[in-house]
């Protein structure tokens, strides 16, 4: 099967997100309880789902790295987690905006959904110092993979635990007790979710392509300058794409 190019993925993500946001403001009805403020839901929830799914993808690449020993999987794991942390920042900020509008407070500490996401976010925030603390690249990649797998396994467990917990004020998406989302809202939400997922994929591929270009440049520099002992490509914490992997995406 032919993998779509980065350009096609980026265009599809942009179109889907624009279509989703158009549906949000011109098609989806106003929520009876929350009114217009509920429109944040179509941004906040897809961001959260993509962020959490991205953490799991990072763990899966971590497994692939430990199984095969190929450095490209470590790079993919790193980029997946990196993008998911960025999406996580978006989740926390948009969630706080919604919370202030809906509850009158920027943050509620006794709400399991909020605090558990913050715990997951802070857990992954420690991923960077973990990489930074280890000089040896092979050991760094191994430890990072172990971290990605362990933390990645924690994400669904955390999600299930939160769903089972009694929510105090945070609304439950896809709750079926009151009939769930009406069709127009569900369609809008699915389009937004698909657009956000494609955006995540496009940005991951974009960063992998940039890392691949940077690694190729380093190899070219070594070849031209005739150096024999040079450090591996990439910054100290952001791994470079190995020379054996010509196609990052």
């Amino acid at each position, binding site marked *: 099967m032919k993998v779509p190019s980065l350009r096609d993925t980026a265009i599809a993500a942009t179109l889907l997100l624009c279509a989703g946001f158009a549906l949000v403001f011109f098609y989806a009805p106003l929520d009876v309880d929350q009114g217009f403020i509920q429109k944040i839901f179509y941004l906040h929830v897809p961001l959260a789902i993509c962020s959490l799914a991205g953490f799991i993808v990072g763990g899966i690449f971590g497994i692939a790295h430990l199984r095969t020993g190929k450095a490209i999987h470590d790079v993919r794991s790193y980029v997946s987690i990196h993008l998911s942390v960025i999406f996580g920042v978006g989740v926390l900020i948009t969630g706080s905006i919604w919370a202030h509008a*809906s509850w009158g407070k920027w943050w509620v500490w006794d709400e399991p959904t909020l605090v558990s996401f913050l715990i997951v976010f802070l857990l992954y925030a420690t991923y960077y110092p973990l990489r930074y603390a280890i000089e040896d690249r092979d050991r760094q990649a191994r430890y990072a993979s172990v971290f990605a797998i362990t933390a990645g396994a924690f994400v669904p467990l955390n999600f299930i635990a939160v769903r089972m917990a009694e929510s105090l004020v945070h609304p439950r998406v896809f709750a079926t007790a009151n009939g769930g989302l009406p069709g127009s809202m569900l369609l809008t939400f699915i389009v937004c979710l698909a657009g956000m997922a494609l955006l995540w994929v496009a940005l991951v591929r974009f960063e992998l392509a940039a890392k691949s270009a940077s690694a190729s440049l380093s190899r070219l520099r070594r070849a031209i300058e005739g150096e024999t002992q040079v450090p591996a490509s990439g910054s100290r914490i952001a791994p470079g794409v190995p020379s054996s992997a010509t196609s990052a995406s």
Partner: protein
Amino acid sequence: MPALPLDEAGKYVAAAYVVFLALILTYVAIMAAKLARIDRELHELADVAEGRAGRDGEERAGG
């Protein structure tokens, strides 16, 4: 809590979407700066390679 009136809720909704846009644009700008650096270094290396090839050509012609 009762739903906020549209004029008040609109500010929050706009803020959330602007934050998202700003986040993505900041990321893309940082990546664009990195790609610009790669492009600049690539041109520098091309200049070095061309200079070296020119010198080698002159040496072969002279010797």
